[in-house]
């Protein structure tokens, strides 16, 4: 495992005689269950909080964003059609896989955000617990936000929540793991599929999380992870006619306004940025923002 310290030493050119040179990881995008480089061939330098080089992350392009939407759309039928129990188990499986790589993620979060080891560990643990929390919601949210309606006539009438579709998620720029999980889990637990744009300055926990997702029985394409310039990737997503919703958590005020305007073109559901405390209990809001209510009527009669 490569700790930030090991990375720093490996780039300093002062490896002591006899010491083992660590194996660096090539960070890649996660699209349709595969790990491609950016089709553009571009990368950008990711540093730790002190400015030390950590990795070259893919600088995803407009084309990568479109490919990710295609993958997310393709995965939507199967994932939204899976049973809630099944989705819940898969989200729980993500927590299990993350727990097993807890040390790695704590190190990545510490490096990315300049946190102490203890604080980074706490963030990682909270992120794992958040997957568990949302896993449990999969087969409960419909009972909480849906239900029968007592209409004034001889009709059976039932309202149930359904996933909105393909959701573009701009992950928070800070809280590179906990913030990311806090916006991603509520989108997919209800059956949406996601195209996630990782934090621009701290994308490595997101790109590593993709490896966890890939080994958690989550079908390919349900979550797609892009790294790069947030606004550059978000623009084509906000304007994309086959994206149904966008979470602007990771956008600044100015670009959020621009992206919301572009999203109006096909009336995407928009969750505006702001006011998020990732340590608080999340509530239903991030799930219901990406749910539609369907109401079915049928006559009652012999």
């Amino acid at each position, binding site marked *: 495992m490569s700790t930030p310290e090991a990375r720093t030493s490996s780039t300093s050119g002062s490896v002591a005689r006899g010491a083992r040179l660590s194996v660096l990881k090539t960070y890649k995008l996660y699209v349709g269950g595969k790990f491609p480089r950016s089709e553009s061939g571009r990368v950008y330098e990711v540093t730790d909080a002190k400015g030390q080089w950590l990795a070259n992350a893919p600088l995803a392009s407009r084309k990568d964003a479109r490919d990710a939407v295609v993958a997310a759309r393709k995965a939507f039928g199967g994932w939204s059609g899976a049973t809630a129990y099944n989705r819940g188990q898969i989200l729980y499986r993500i927590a299990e896989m993350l727990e097993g790589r807890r040390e790695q993620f704590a190190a990545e979060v510490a490096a990315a955000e300049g946190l102490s080891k203890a604080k980074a560990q706490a963030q990682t643990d909270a992120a794992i617990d958040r997957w568990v929390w949302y896993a449990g919601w999969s087969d409960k949210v419909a009972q*909480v*936000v849906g*239900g029968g*309606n*007592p*209409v*004034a*006539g001889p*009709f059976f*009438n039932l*309202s149930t929540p359904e996933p*909105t579709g393909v959701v573009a998620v701009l992950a928070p720029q800070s809280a590179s793991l906990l913030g990311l999980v806090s916006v991603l889990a509520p989108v997919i637990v209800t059956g949406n599929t996601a195209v996630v744009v990782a934090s621009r300055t701290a994308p490595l926990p997101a790109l590593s999380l993709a490896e966890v997702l890939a080994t958690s029985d989550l079908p390919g394409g349900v979550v797609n992870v892009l790294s790069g310039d947030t606004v550059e990737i978000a623009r084509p997503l906000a304007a994309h006619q086959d994206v*149904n919703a966008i979470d602007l958590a990771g956008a600044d*005020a100015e670009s*959020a*306004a*621009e992206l*919301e*305007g572009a*999203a*109006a*073109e*096909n*009336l995407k*559901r*928009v969750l*505006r940025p702001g006011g998020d405390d990732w340590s608080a209990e999340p*509530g*239903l*809001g991030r799930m*219901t923002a990406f749910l*539609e*209510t*369907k*109401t*079915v*009527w*049928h*006559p009652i009669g012999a």
Partner: protein
Amino acid sequence: MNAKLFAYAPAPESRAVVDIAPSYGLFVDGEFREAAAGKVFKTLSPASEEVLSEVAYGEQEDIDAAVRAARAAFGPWSALPGAERAKYLFRIARIIQERSRELAVLETLDNGKPIRETRDADLPLVAAHFFYYAGWADKLSYAGCGPDPRPLGVAAQVIPWNFPLLMLAWKVAPALATGNTVVLKPAETTPLSALFFADICRQAGLPKGVVNIVPGDGATGAALVGHPDVNKVAFTGSTAVGKQIARTVAGTRKRLTLELGGKGANIVFEDAPLDQAVEGIVGGIFFNQGQVCCAGSRLLVQESVQEEVLDALKRRLSTLRVGDPLDKNTDVGAINSAEQLARITELAEAGEAEGAQRWSPPCELPGEGYWFAPTVFTGVSQAHRIAREEIFGPVLSVLTFRTPDEAVAKANNTPYGLSAGIWTEKGSRILKLANQLRAGVVWANTFNKFDPTSPFGGYKESGYGREGGRHGLEAYLEHA
């Protein structure tokens, strides 16, 4: 058969029950006043082109005054105990019931829809809607929006002309129950019932400024939606205007709900109860002259019963009575405006030009007013404009399918997602299709049913947010 032998005698509802003043002002801060610039516009009866009244035309200055009044009223109104707000709404519901016949006749005059519909559908639903939300006002902590849900502030509400008073009720009732105050802009062609509602607010003793009504056109609506001191925008109307509003609201803190257009598929399987299905098809597209966002404007009929269904449908359409909306026997009334009639006419012509076969029952249309005969197009392909665009008129496009999968694929092949219908006796098929159809309301073996407890609203480009039921409260409360 001698048709004359069985002809109906005219049975007009009396106009004497409603007293329309020659002119109306804006309703701002509890009183009627002239528009600041003194402009007025005429509202017509679409069935006769008779001028019913002159109405003040609201502009920016009037919107400013109305928003100021609503802002001033917001503090005390939202601070009232919920039980007191509830009683105001119960009063309004009761007064609407008392004045129901008057309002039904008024609505029929101003809108052109048959008295049978305003009397039996619009008005009962209006009263029921206020009665339903009245009961929520002191129970909001149970609504699933947190233990102490707070109102948003001033709600800007823009409503259409197809169900003028009902759309007002859908907007105003939940807004007031949750403690918001309202500035409402009724549609340009149907302002009267909203102005009568202002009088009902007066009779109910509603505090001044809680409800303000500013008639006008699209420019008035744009000024209202764009006003910097409104906290909430609720719009029902076309998808094109809805997108414009979404762009206006982008980058602000205003909350937005949109209830927009549709191109609903009514799917008839070979095992359906065909007589009932035909009634449902007729109600689905000819109710309110087809000027319904959730109309079943695309009939998807299984190939094996295509001829049988179409024969029965044509027989049934030949018995529809088109004419004087105030006649109690009228089934299909007038189109709401010359502009809407032109749009329907243009799209029907496009249907013919693109190769679909047009059919209408023989019917005599009145010489004055805006009329369009019930029309069925067969041989429609998914690429035809009449299969893709919302016509908002009494025009049905018939397509066929062979398998349930094909029916679902065709039904979902639209940017809209408001309503859908399924006709089959097979329960498991109903439930599977209901799951697969991307639409906010699915009517199985029925169509065009509404109820205040039942959430209504669209998927995709039919808008977002729900009106009706517990869900309808969420649009007017801070999210916990």
